[in-house]
């Protein structure tokens, strides 16, 4: 087995006396697509924020590439991990191009002009996410789906191998949802980026990922393949309700059916 890209060891994190994460241990392997699911308030977002060191966590709890995260500077961390937060950017006054260029921050130095490398990374990111045509639009004038895509483009331009995403497709219409899922899949399969996505969408997790982690009340209660998740013995423990399953006619994987009243 390959050495983990990120090792989380007994991570416990509290905010003002309430424990948000309770001895969480997860290994994230290079090149895998890992989905983290779980009920509201399980600590999924907090976990991503700990990985990005937006929250300060106990020393030694998180290793990135074998190095304790607190020993990497924020800039060095950003060269390895990028983070797409949930529905942000309503107040972003920059154009899409300027905004994506800010993703190059870890490579910039003071008083120096923008290098060709940075320009190339930006146009590459805009091309991959198919938002070239939005380059000169201000981010705060975009629709939710376009804005989400711009954030993913900025994370791609940042050049990190590991991409953390918080609810990347929530609140998006089916077309934008499909587009974002295709972009993430391409990043993962053809460019070898490691993807860690927090999601409420059990089916998206089952269809896209290599591995699924379930968090509940700050604890990891399950780690396994998408096939193993689609089982009422597992899901009822997480969500406290029974699901009905069906096989996806194209993907050949089990998915859950939406609730229907008789």
């Amino acid at each position: 087995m390959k050495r983990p890209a990120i090792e989380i060891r007994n991570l416990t994190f509290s905010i003002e006396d309430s424990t948000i994460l309770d001895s969480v241990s997860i290994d994230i392997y290079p090149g895998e697509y890992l989905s983290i699911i779980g009920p509201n308030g399980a600590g999924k977002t907090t976990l991503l924020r700990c990985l990005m060191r937006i929250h300060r966590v106990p020393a030694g709890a998180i290793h990135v590439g074998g190095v304790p995260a607190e020993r990497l500077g924020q800039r060095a961390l950003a060269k390895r991990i990028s983070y797409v937060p949930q529905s942000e950017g309503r107040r972003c006054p920059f154009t899409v191009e300027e905004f994506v260029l800010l993703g190059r921050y870890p490579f910039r130095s003071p008083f120096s002009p923008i290098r060709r490398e940075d320009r190339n990374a930006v146009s590459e990111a805009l091309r991959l996410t198919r938002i070239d045509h939005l380059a000169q639009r201000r981010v705060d004038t975009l629709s939710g789906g376009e804005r989400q895509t711009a954030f993913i483009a900025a994370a791609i331009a940042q050049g990190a191998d590991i991409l953390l995403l918080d609810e990347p497709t929530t609140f998006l219409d089916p077309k934008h949802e499909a587009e974002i899922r295709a972009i993430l899949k391409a990043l993962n399969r053809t460019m070898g980026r490691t993807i860690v996505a927090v999601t409420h969408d059990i089916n998206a997790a089952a269809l896209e990922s290599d591995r699924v982690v379930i968090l509940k009340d700050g604890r990891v209660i399950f780690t396994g393949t998408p096939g193993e998740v689609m089982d009422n013995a597992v899901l009822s423990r997480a969500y406290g309700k029974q699901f009905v399953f069906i096989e996806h006619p194209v993907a050949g994987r089990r998915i859950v059916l939406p609730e229907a009243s008789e």
Partner: protein
Amino acid sequence: MNQKRNIVIVSIFGLTAAVLLLAPFVGIETITLQEVVRPAAGGTGADIFWRIRVPRVLTAFCAGAALALSGMAFQAMFRNPLATPFTLGVSSGAAFGASLYVVTGIVFSIGPVSGQSLSAFVWAAMAILIVYGLTRVRRGSSTATMLIAGVAVNFFFSSFILFIQYISDFTRSFRVIRWLMGGFEIVGYEPVTTILPFVITGSFVIFALTNELNVLTLGEDIALSRGVPVRRVKTALFFATSLMVGSIVSVCGPIGFVGMMAPHICRLLVGYDHRYLAPATCVFGGAFLVLCDALARSLIPPAEIPVGVITALLGGPFFLWLLLRRSREGGQMGDL
């Protein structure tokens, strides 16, 4: 867009140069170029020009540039156009520090740095830390919290200044009052050389951090995920702004609203990229204050209006306009 921006920046620099060249001739008495170049025997024009007007214009320029840059840095850090040295209570902190030094009568200096500047700097830093601390404790509606915290800190330090005036004698007290109005009634180059090292150091720090300011405009969480060492950057910015505001207030008194108007007008003109915004704001703020000071000494001759009164008369309505514009746009959209 880029070409338009370059034209605008060049125009701002050109107009600033024009203002700097013309301003020394304007005042209670207008001085002609002839008087300066070929001074007549017994004429005082050249003397006034070189010993009073030029140092005064240079001081006003440095003060305006530094206050505008500080305002710009605060606005990016607090993500709010109403954040300025004046509204955050930094100016009154510095004013308190400076008057404390004057009244206690203890005279000290560290190297070339006067005790008055030092005291102003320390209390300016104190004020900004209090306001920033309060906005961190109460997250959420940050604009309201920030303004209330700024008002509270302002009141707090103003009361102390009042108290200091009350216990000191009449002439000292009047001096403090006149100084609190803000102004550049100076003679010689000493004030300029006093504030210049602070202004240069502080500006250098801000110019070196323009990439960071750009990312901070997106919020601290995103800044962290882009690799900005937010804590260190903010410490450096608080230090730089306190240094500049402290030195300026100790020499010229608290001059308000330059730090709000200059960055805002420049953002409308050149956009939000701090790599261009910082130089534009810097020279615009300097030129703006030089212009206000020229008005101050020529509007009602033979008297002079304190320049702080002029900037406040312009700045008050501007502040209200910003506030109204924000609430009309639903609060969030108007930010920055």
